[in-house]
């Protein structure tokens, strides 16, 4: 039954993908291409490229696209629900645990969280660095990145305007 297979595959992706964003792509590749042959490798990389140019998280984009290709609109709904279901369960459990211990005023939780903070931030910093490595090809791009950094830290300007402005600058500079 194709919908059940879709559900199981994307549920597995939802459980075993850690690190967020592009870190999850090898796992998705394994499930979709190696295990089920739902897409060919070039098709898959096209999906990844499209996912990078459409709104929202890459994991959701992949689930929706593959679900549609395999089982139509219903398939896309099944795959998308399957990929977020483990999150709902696990995040809710962690949230509950965090709240419980914080409410008790247990100092150990605060210590644990502040010890974890550098690790969590390093993952975000790594995302920024890998995007910079991919996307910055010349001096003008470095200036755009620096300007965006300064505007986002020193002003209250809406970040959407910063990104949109940078896109317009890209059209002026590169078109």
């Amino acid at each position, binding site marked *: 039954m194709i919908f059940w297979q879709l559900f199981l595959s994307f549920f597995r992706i939802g459980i075993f993908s850690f690190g967020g964003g592009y870190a999850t792509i090898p796992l998705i590749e394994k499930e979709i291409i190696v295990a089920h042959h739902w897409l060919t490798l070039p098709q898959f990389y096209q999906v990844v490229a499209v996912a*990078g140019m*459409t709104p929202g998280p890459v994991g959701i984009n992949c689930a*929706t696209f593959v679900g549609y290709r395999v089982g139509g609109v219903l398939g896309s709904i099944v795959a998308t629900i399957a990929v977020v279901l483990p999150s709902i369960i696990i*995040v809710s459990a962690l949230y509950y645990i965090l709240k419980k211990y914080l409410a008790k005023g247990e100092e150990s939780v605060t210590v644990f969280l502040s010890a974890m903070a550098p690790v969590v931030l*390093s*993952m975000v910093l790594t995302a920024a660095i890998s*995007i910079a490595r991919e*996307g910055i090809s010349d001096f003008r791009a470095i200036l755009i990145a620096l300007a*965006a950094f300064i505007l986002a830290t020193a002003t209250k300007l809406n970040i959407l305007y910063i990104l949109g402005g940078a896109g317009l*600058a890209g059209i002026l500079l590169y078109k």
Partner: protein
Amino acid sequence: MKKNPKIFLSFLKIGAFTIGGGFVMLPLIRQEVVDRRKWISEEQFMHFLTIAQSSPGVMAVNLSLAIGWEVNGFSGALSGLLGAVLPSFVSILLIAMLFLKYFESAWLTAFFKGAVPATSGVIGAVVFVLARKNLKSFSQYAALLVTTALLVFWQANPVLVIILGMVVALWVTYRRQV
């Protein structure tokens, strides 16, 4: 307006306008829920980010769930989730159905040549803002540099880095109590 529609719309807006994956949503989510709506503090944001990164699945979805929980319980969590997922779902479905080729236009390529570097800038900025608020000791900054080096230069597996971080964090917590 009731809380759930507000949560839904906040994440819908962020989900609809951020292109390039979940990490791009991060600075916008922080600005929306901490600076604008004032739903949670900077410190709580860091806690929820830790939950989101320590859980499997889509990071931005995890973050929307944890923040939604805090603002309005389980229904708030589902509102956040729905807002974060819907734009992605709808736009991909349209592309898959209509085979739109808009992403091959030269204008759009130039737009992204400008927007992508800015993306790295605003994600770097959110790290800066969160670090300034949440990292207080020299050893925390040292840990940030070491783990980033592990991830960037040695392409360490993020799962292993998270687990290693948890082990070290548990050890630090244990030592503090003795």
